[in-house]
């Protein structure tokens, strides 16, 4: 390897070093992160008031990260059929929430509660300084599921109250 480099130098074949452009600290993005950023999956919104939709809104603009994750649940089977996200945050935050929407689709609600931020971080090779992005994604999933469950309780409660008044 060394010898080849020396040979290249001797023959004057070394390419001039490409100068990196200035971005805060030098940090390389994993290609998964860049892929999710360039081709984001599942960006968009469902109707908040739809009873089959659960919405999780986590984070704060002051911290620089806000994630909104929405799940569409099939009422009979309790399975998540579709998911959408919108994120205000850095590339890692966008990628984390995009991955989260991909992973929740087609799973049962109880299953997605077991998704851990470490799994998301590993999939995206997030550096330590970006781990909070994956934490936020995990929180967003949990918040969305909770919101859906709360909604179900409310509609069921209202239906029960309706029944009692009728009866």
């Amino acid at each position: 390897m060394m010898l080849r480099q020396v040979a290249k130098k001797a023959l004057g074949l070394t390419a001039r070093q490409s100068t990196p452009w200035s971005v805060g600290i030098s940090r390389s993005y994993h290609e998964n992160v860049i892929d999710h950023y360039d081709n984001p999956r599942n960006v968009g919104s469902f109707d908040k008031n739809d009873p089959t939709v659960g919405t999780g809104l986590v984070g704060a603009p002051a911290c620089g990260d806000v994630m909104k994750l929405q799940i569409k649940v099939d009422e009979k089977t309790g399975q998540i059929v579709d998911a959408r996200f919108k994120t205000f945050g850095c590339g890692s935050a966008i990628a984390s929430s995009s991955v989260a929407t991909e992973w929740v689709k087609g799973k049962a609600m109880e299953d997605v509660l077991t998704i851990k931020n470490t799994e998301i971080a590993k999939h995206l090779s997030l550096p330590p300084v970006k781990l909070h992005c994956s934490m936020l994604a995990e929180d967003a999933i949990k918040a969305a599921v909770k919101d859906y469950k709360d909604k179900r309780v409310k509609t069921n409660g209202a239906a029960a109250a309706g029944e009692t008044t009728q009866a």
Partner: protein
Amino acid sequence: MASKVISSTIRRTLSKPHGVVFRRHHLSTAAAAATDYEDESIMMKGVRISGRPLYLDMQATTPIDPRVFDAMNDSGINEYGNPHSRTHLYGWEAENAVEVARIQVAKLIGASPKEIIFMSGATEANNTAVKGVMHFYKDTKKHVITTQTEHKCVLDSCRHLQQEGFEVTYLPVKTDGLVDLEMLREAIRPDTGLVSIMAVNNEIGVVQPMEEIGQICKEHNVPFHTDAAQAIGKIPVDVKKWNIGLMSMSAHKIYGPKGVGALFVRRRPRIRLEPLMNGGGQERGLRSGTAATQQILGFGAACDLAMKEMEYDEKWIKGLQERLLNGIREKLDGVVVNGSMESRYSGNLNLSFAYVEGESLLMGLKEVAVSSGSACTSASLEPSYVLRALGVDEDMAHTSIRFGIGRFTTKEEIDKAVELTVKQVVKLREMSPLYEMVKEGIDIKNIQWSQH
């Protein structure tokens, strides 16, 4: 073994298509059309781009002007003597080169050549000025005044002084980035040894009211130090008019080489300071060490050019700045300029795009080399301290991008930058829950966020 390697390398090169190894001339900063990724694409840090990005980060550094490069190269081969060698022609020639450069630098700022001390850059000059002056007068003067938007090297030197027992006042700035002159007046005490306020801010580009500040310092007889690294060669600088006692300068911000700068130290009335570098007493005892002849020569040539071309550059850059700002404002709303628009150096445009985060915007602007003041690009989750000092809202502080325009920037580059920026901002706003909420009419400031 070695011959095997050499022959295989030769074979490899001959079979590779021509044109992959050699890059274009470094001044060609235009980005190639992103059509064909095959031959010319560059892959670095997980990002693939076709051709080199547009360079719009002139506050970080500037490309060396070819005329400066020629002057430096010429001298490097022939004038290799040590300028402090008194006894032979080589030393005399090198010394002559350094003295010519000294005159060129002095002329740019309206000083005498005897007042210019060459250093390794503005950071060293700032350190020498702040620490050197205070150490010299430490028996009588215990207080330093500076601002919250200074360059890190000044702030860190002040912190160092605080640890040694000095007192430092960090003046806040108004929302347009300018110092409040009344606050400065009130902050000066009888034991104030130094006032340090930068002329042009590197992050937001505002120009401080230097003449008025100089007047206040003269009234109270306090030495006035200014970090003019971003100012010389760009706005007219006159050390007598501004009543400057010490001024830091840097070469690589005005199309000169990196690794050289200077400190102006006034002689009438004399400012005394303790040197940071001890040794043979070069540079009037204020900075020992062999002078970097070629670098200094480059610095001098850059100053000379700057003096001749300042007016033309200003017109050119101002036109480009308007083109950039108007181009972006035509297509986007929610664009805020950070810092005063009136008292500003035209080559620095720091913009905040509402509802879009800075680092994600930078990631999308891979084909434009710019810088951001956002939290994600620093190690902590805190946004830039300069934007904080301006009192910018937390969520806006995360979204700033700094565009730097210079002598070699072209109209095509600005147009392309506008196009790319608008495209990315639109895409990110579509992805942004904050933008969605605003469109629905929800007031973001009233929401209770779940903090982490």
